[in-house]
């Protein structure tokens, strides 16, 4: 596992040093260390509930670390000088619905020293046609683009985007990702959270993977993908198989029937063999080893694992979490 790569604290945009965050009895962050340098485009990737939003909230000073240090531009994240250099797009935040897109962009521009032209910010978000529409009347995807316009209208040095493409349709998502890239080319630092591996892969040059409050990987998208993009294999075995039969194979998250997955309940057990499910980054190797032992297989399926499952291979867990 790669731990955070330190590039030296001087001039870093974001510094997380041993950051813990506890809500009541829940430990949302368990000792996060990483640094984000100027001009980086970093995706913070993790399944739902991994601590991504908590991490970005700490970066923005919306939440205070229970232990450890968070710095933004070398300052406490809530410092106004630090706030003046960042644009943010938050999950679940809102704007007064009575104001129009243009009025909101004008208002948010006033918070920054050298903002973009209002029309330019509206254009970047693809909302020219909705400029005079009240925020309350926008669709979910348009509203998300409005938040993007508000994040960029101050022409900040760094952008923090929490699940920015949620609620966007395919076309606006593609356009959005292209805009993010052009911001990155212009030298901005961009930090975004996502639970979509493909999005992280398309966009970022660096992916920080968080799971249950811990940093589990910090690497290039290609390197991460090679490790997390596992396949889910399922079949019915007509021969008796137990867990020992999989020893030494590139397999994790093994489920033999008895722990039948959802959707299989309606079939009577035992009549068509034993249900076997597992995750693997090398399904061909695992299957050919089984075939070499003359295991007879029915209903074989090999599909791309979703992120929840893929993380199992990264975190090395043996049991599928429900």
């Amino acid at each position, binding site marked *: 596992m790669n731990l955070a790569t330190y590039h030296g604290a001087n*001039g870093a945009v974001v510094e997380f040093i041993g950051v813990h965050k506890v809500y009541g009895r829940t430990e949302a962050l368990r000792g996060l260390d990483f640094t984000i340098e100027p001009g980086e485009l970093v995706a913070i990737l993790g399944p739902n509930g991994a601590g991504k939003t908590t991490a970005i909230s700490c970066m923005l000073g919306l939440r205070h670390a229970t232990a450890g240090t968070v710095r933004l531009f070398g300052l406490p994240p809530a410092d106004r000088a630090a*706030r003046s250099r960042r644009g943010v797009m938050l999950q679940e935040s809102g704007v*007064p619905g009575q104001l129009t897109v243009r009025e909101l962009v004008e208002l948010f521009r006033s*918070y920054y*020293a050298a903002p973009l032209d209002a029309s330019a910010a509206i*254009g970047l978000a693809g909302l020219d046609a909705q400029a005079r529409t009240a925020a309350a009347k926008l669709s979910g995807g348009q509203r998300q683009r409005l938040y993007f316009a508000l994040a960029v209208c101050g022409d900040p040095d760094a952008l923090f985007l929490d699940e920015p493409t949620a609620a966007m349709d395919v076309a606006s998502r593609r356009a959005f990702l292209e805009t993010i890239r052009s911001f990155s080319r212009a030298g901005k630092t961009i930090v975004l959270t996502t639970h979509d591996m493909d999005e992280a892969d398309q966009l970022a040059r660096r992916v920080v993977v968080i799971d249950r409050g811990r940093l589990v990987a910090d690497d290039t998208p290609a390197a991460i993908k090679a490790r997390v993009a596992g396949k889910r294999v399922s079949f019915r075995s007509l021969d008796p198989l137990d867990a020992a039969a999989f020893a030494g194979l590139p397999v994790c998250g093994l489920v033999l029937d008895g722990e039948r997955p959802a959707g299989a309940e309606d079939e009577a057990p035992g009549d068509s063999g034993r249900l076997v499910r597992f995750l693997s980054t090398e399904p061909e190797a695992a299957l050919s080893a089984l075939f070499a032992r003359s295991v007879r297989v029915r209903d074989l399926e090999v599909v791309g694992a979703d992120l929840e499952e893929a993380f199992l291979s990264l975190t090395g867990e043996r049991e599928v979490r429900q």
Partner: protein
Amino acid sequence: MSTIAKRPRASVQVGARAAGTPALLPMLWAQTRAQARVFWRTPAVSMTGLLMPLMMLVFFVLPHARETWQGSISVGAYMLAAMGAYAVSSVMVFNFGVTVAMERGQKVDLLMRAMPLPGWVYLAARVIGALVFGALAMGLLFAAALGLGGIALAPPVWVSLAWRLLAGALPFIGFGFAIAYLAGPSAAPAVANLTYIGLAFASGMFVRLDQMPDFLRSIAPLLPTYHYAQLAWGAIGAANESTLVSVAWLAGYTVALFALAAWAYRRETLRKFA
């Protein structure tokens, strides 16, 4: 979406724009304008705040405007001062109580907190906006009283009444804020209406105190609205207490209500942003 390539940036060096915090006055202006728009476009708040007192004045007061009470006090002037007090303070209570609660419901506070906007600019913009609307509500009443009802006051009396109505409304900002943070977003309008109309009634703004039941008359002098109305009536020489006493009570209520609002605000902040 277009690209941003057409707009080259001189530098994105971290640390290169250390002094890049924006000027506060333009921020305050933009914020005030936005708040005023929000208020104006919330007719449940703005129309009731501006038109309700006007309607009450026209329907119930002006027909009796030329009568006198206790020999020398003009009923028209007396009720104009009372309606003015009701109008200005209700703008304060509703602007803060209802629109702040509404913004909490829309989670505007979360985004604002992440912005480079200092908290005091946000607060000052609201106060200025509320004062402007309070002055507007008052101006409408004055215009109706002059134009339709022939309520004639000497120019210094108009001026005295105006500043008493605006300055005396201060505690009601705290009152509104406290409601916004103590009641939930959906309950706030009802809570503001019930408590505020109750207070206004019990203080003699709608019905003269001497016509009210004894128990109301005995608790009235404890209410902020009572002393606010007395301050207004002082302008036409119809108060039961000296201006100094009214001001002292209102100052005390300002401190108490703002302290309550600050406590409620801090409680919420700790819950949401700790």
